[in-house]
């Protein structure tokens, strides 16, 4: 569905926004694209939509070149930009009518249904709408024509928690209909809930790609093991996946990454009275990844 090969984007002044990024997204997949501000998420998304020309590399969607065959691609895409600006004087209904004409489709049926689900007044001028309601208008224009591919940059920005949930429901329904979703977000819990795979981008480099489960396997566990007798630090050194080991009398503190097998087997050589393990959430995992990449 989406194939990005060795894609780089340079801006004037020797600024590299994205550096040799390669990524492949299959049809029907929900792909979460995450990274800190300025990492290259929006540059990648705007290249997919055909707004930016790759400096090098190849970007294809539906086996068509994103820059040269953009019109054919965009016919099948729904796009929500990160910085959303709509025609202020128009109402959402007039906006959708205008975009329908450009797309040569009629979305009036879907518009009615989705506006009810998102609780949006379609006839109010966009300039009178709150930020959240503008975001709803933006979502409607991206969703109503039932695209084969949705490209969404920070889609739930400005939505309240109930509407965020409703949005996730709509996305799930679209996936069941075979729609592919490329979703950029900094709200990791939201990505974790719906994405099949996640890509982490930092400083223009794709630093990790994997399923939520795979990334979770990289979870750091802060471990505290209480023993009946004091233990020696040497008994726990050189264990696979174990670091930051400290002992304090009967207590051992360490960080375990991935499988705990080695640590548990080493601890079992002594009499264990109590084990406490604190799992880091996905957000912390990514923060650690950013820090690791930085160092």
């Amino acid at each position, binding site marked *: 569905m989406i194939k990005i090969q060795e894609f780089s984007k340079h801006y004037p002044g020797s600024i590299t926004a994205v550096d040799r990024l390669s990524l492949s997204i299959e049809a029907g997949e929900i792909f979460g694209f995450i990274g800190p501000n300025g990492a290259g998420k929006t540059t990648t998304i705007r290249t997919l939509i055909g*707004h930016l020309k790759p400096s090098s590399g190849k970007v294809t969607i539906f086996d068509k070149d994103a820059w040269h065959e953009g019109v054919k691609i*965009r016919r099948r895409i729904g796009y929500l930009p990160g910085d959303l*600006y709509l025609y202020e004087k128009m109402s959402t209904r007039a906006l959708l009518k205008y975009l329908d004409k*450009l797309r040569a489709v009629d979305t009036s049926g879907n518009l009615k249904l989705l506006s009810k689900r998102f609780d949006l007044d379609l006839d109010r001028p966009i300039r009178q709408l709150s930020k959240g309601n503008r975001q709803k208008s933006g979502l409607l224009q991206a969703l109503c024509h039932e695209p084969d591919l949705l490209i969404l940059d920070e889609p739930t920005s400005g939505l309240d928690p109930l509407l965020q949930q409703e949005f996730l429901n709509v996305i799930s329904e679209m996936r069941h209909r075979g729609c592919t979703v490329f979703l950029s977000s900094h709200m990791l819990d939201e990505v974790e809930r719906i994405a099949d795979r996640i890509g982490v981008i930092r400083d223009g480099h794709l630093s990790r790609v994997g399923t939520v489960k795979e990334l979770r396997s990289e979870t750091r566990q802060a471990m505290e093991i209480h023993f009946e007798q004091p233990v020696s630090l040497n008994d726990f050194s050189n264990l696979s996946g174990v670091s930051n080991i400290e002992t304090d009398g009967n207590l051992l503190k360490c960080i375990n990454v991935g499988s705990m097998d080695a640590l548990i087997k080493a601890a079992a050589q002594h009499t264990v009275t109590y084990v406490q393990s604190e799992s880091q959430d996905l957000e912390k995992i990514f923060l650690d990844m950013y820090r690791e990449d930085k160092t």
Partner: protein
Amino acid sequence: MTIFWKKCRDRKYNLLWWVVGITAYMLMMGWYYPSISEQKEAMEALLESFPDTMWTILGLDGTIDMMSGSGFLTVEAFSIMLPICFSIFAMGIGSRSIAGEETDGTLEILAAMPVSRGQIFIENFLALLVLMATLGACLWVSVLIASRWGDMGITYLPISGGTLMVSLLGLFFGTLTLTAGAITGRRGQTIAIGTAAIVVAYALNTLAKTITSLSVIRWLSPFHYYTEGLSLNQNLQFTDALPLIIGISALAWIGFYIFKHRDIK
């Protein structure tokens, strides 16, 4: 043609006010001319006292008979007032087209539709063309009414030639700003470029008539072709309009080409 119709609709009230203003001005000329022609001798004596430089500043030469209906309208309307009005109107449309949408951020959504950059540019250009043609047609009608009302004796074809030339001059500056917007994507810069182009082009044409060293580059000014081709007492020759048509086409092609190949900001 969805973008074209939207652009035309967006500018309809703006066009209406320009039509009202220009029509009112032309009718005022029609009302005013008889009182001038009644004082022909005194006026001719006054005009003869004008130095050549004065005529040059007006963008004219001293051969124009200002007491004739065509001469009166040329001096009062077609020498400065109408070219500036048409150029400002066209510049407003040109700067709000691509640069306006890009500055407002709405181009992000528009360019994500299944339309090519070329189509966006062409439909914006067509809207500019049609709006200018509409203003030109309204000017044609108002000049005709003014001519009849004031008994100026100007016939259909010279009026057509005059309105065509002023419309082409406006279209030139409108296309220049549309193209500048298609290149820069910034409305502020586009307006600055358009305004500077009008002022420099007018000054160049005027000064080149009096400063010999500038006369060799006078051909760069669209006002040169406008004043050379303008005549309300004889029919327009197609060759008089040709340089402006070539200039407009060249500018449109440059804007079309660059907009197709650049990033959207």
